[in-house]
């Protein structure tokens, strides 16, 4: 387990790499997995769990802990290794990933995964869950924050906007959207499938405070976290993280072919070596 006391950017970078390599390893166990949706949020997850959230892995039900909802539940494959690494459960359990009877499926089940604050998988629900947790916390006099990670394709779901309206209305300053703005959904670029820009202005128009930062640059990610206000009343907080779907593996970056996939043989070894070398500068493919 990595202790918060010795967290620095090098540690977070290493944990983001760990999230990616574990995602590749676990996908091989399953035979298929969501690589690219997990790679896009690896730095956000690392910074959140290893440096930002108020949690106590020895007491997963601690009432005053910060909550995290992985609303884009298909990225749970990147969350399980983090929870295991922090001590919520034995990392050996990860080897059962997706096998018959395992606690760990492609979409996470709170009744089976220690440290998971809520189940997810059906897109569009997570912000409402977080809204309820934030309302409950304020009513109970607790000052925890509730973080909800949304996919950019996910916010086409109408229920998201029901919750966005309600959070502004209820002035839930301790509710935080983490939008993984990786640009792609399954069928194509989000702006071709169902455009959401200017997404930061849309949240702002519903009464949210919005930051927009590079979701792969750890100082920027941590800077956005540090800028979150204290207190449970005020404008709800949205952080739009501009990210690259598939970031970290060249063949997957902004590729529509890797939403779900499986690396075998040399491809597996090549990708693992590429990940071990760390993030290289992102070079978008030139437009055709």
């Amino acid at each position: 387990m990595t202790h918060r006391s010795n967290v620095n950017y090098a540690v977070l970078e290493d944990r983001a790499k760990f999230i990616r390599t574990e995602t590749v390893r676990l996908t091989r166990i399953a035979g298929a997995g969501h690589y690219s949706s997990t790679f896009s949020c690896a730095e956000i997850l690392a910074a959140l769990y290893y440096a930002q959230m108020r949690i106590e892995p020895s007491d997963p039900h601690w009432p005053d802990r910060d909550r995290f909802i992985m609303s884009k539940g298909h990225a749970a494959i990147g969350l399980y290794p983090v929870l295991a690494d922090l001590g919520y459960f034995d990392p050996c359990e990860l080897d059962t990933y997706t096998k018959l009877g395992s606690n760990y499926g492609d979409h996470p089940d709170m009744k089976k995964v220690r440290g998971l604050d809520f189940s997810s998988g059906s897109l569009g629900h997570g912000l409402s869950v977080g809204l309820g947790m934030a309302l409950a916390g304020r009513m109970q006099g607790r000052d925890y924050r509730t973080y909800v990670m949304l996919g950019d394709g996910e916010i086409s779901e109408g229920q998201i906007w029901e919750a966005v309206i309600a959070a502004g209305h209820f002035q839930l300053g301790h509710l935080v959207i983490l939008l993984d703005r990786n640009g792609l959904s399954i069928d194509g670029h989000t702006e071709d499938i169902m455009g959401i820009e200017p997404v930061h202005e849309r949240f702002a128009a519903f009464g949210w405070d919005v930051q927009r930062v590079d979701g792969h640059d750890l100082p920027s990610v941590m800077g956005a976290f540090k800028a979150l206000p204290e207190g449970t009343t005020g404008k709800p907080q949205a952080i739009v993280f501009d990210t690259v779907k598939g970031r970290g593996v060249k063949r997957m970056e902004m590729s529509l072919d890797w939403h779900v996939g499986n690396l075998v043989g040399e491809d597996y070894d090549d990708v693992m070596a590429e990940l071990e070398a760390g993030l290289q500068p992102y070079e978008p493919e030139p437009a055709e």
Partner: protein
Amino acid sequence: MSTEMQNEAEIFRGTTEGATRFKDHRSVQGTPKKGMPAFVLGEELAEMAKTDPRIVVATADLASANRTNDFNDIHPERFFEFGIAEKNMITAAAGMAACGLVPYVATFASFAAILGAEQIRTDCAYPKMPVRVIGTHSGMSMGFYGSSHHALEDLGMLRVMADLTVICATDANHLRAVLRASADHPGAMYIRLGRGRDPQVYDTVPALEMGKAIRLRDGSDLTIIATGSEVRAALDAAEALAADGISVRVIDMHTISPLDRTEVEAAARETGAILTVEEHNITGGLGSAVADVLVDLPRLPFLKHGVPDRYVEVGPPAALYDKYRLDAPGVTAVAREFLAAQA
């Protein structure tokens, strides 16, 4: 909310008065007693919440129609108005439940159950959250508001969901019993209510066990298994048939899931025929749940009575109950025809 519905909501303010103005015509013999058709939902929850800090209540712009405003009057800090956003309300209630609260969320059954079905399954039942989704104005009790506001499919849709208790309140006293039993009931619940004009069946708050039917009248020729709004009609039909020398057992099958198999098996063993009566589409509801039990037993005469598998016509509720033979005379006639066909 339309002006018309706002007026409807106003009618429910002080519902004894409303009941006087809109006297229910469904029950011929069982005239509603004073005060009984009132919605006691908010009042009962407010009383429970005085000693149970876990209880919170939410609605989706129908606080006056479902009387959750009676709760808001007493516990405003524990009342949440979600506006016309039922999906958000149900899922947020699941989030609250994950923090140790026991949320009761109420709106029309057409929106609570049909619009909110996936939220009920995925966010309440599947993670075993103690959310109580309360569908008021169920069946076709909204009358001429039309099929958009009817819920004749909710039992069928929800009883197939694992880890979801589905229960129909019979009248005001029964509703109090259901609510009291619900506070510590494990997992998610769907509580189906009528329109608040339901004729009285229980003189006092009955002893209630989830999943355990209540035998209201014994008999040997026929068992009528009814639920919710149809229990009164079933009792009145039994009384009418008794005058013809026909002995009828009447069962209040309040819990649709899990169903009381034992009581159905007893009826099949001890009485000559079974008739189910429900204010619900004939497909998928109480009758189908009973049939699921009977299919494993020796055959006996069995008839499902409910609303045909089509969208009902426009009309005042009493006219609809008459047309679809779900008032006491209708149920009586259906039972007579059913028994005659066996002769």
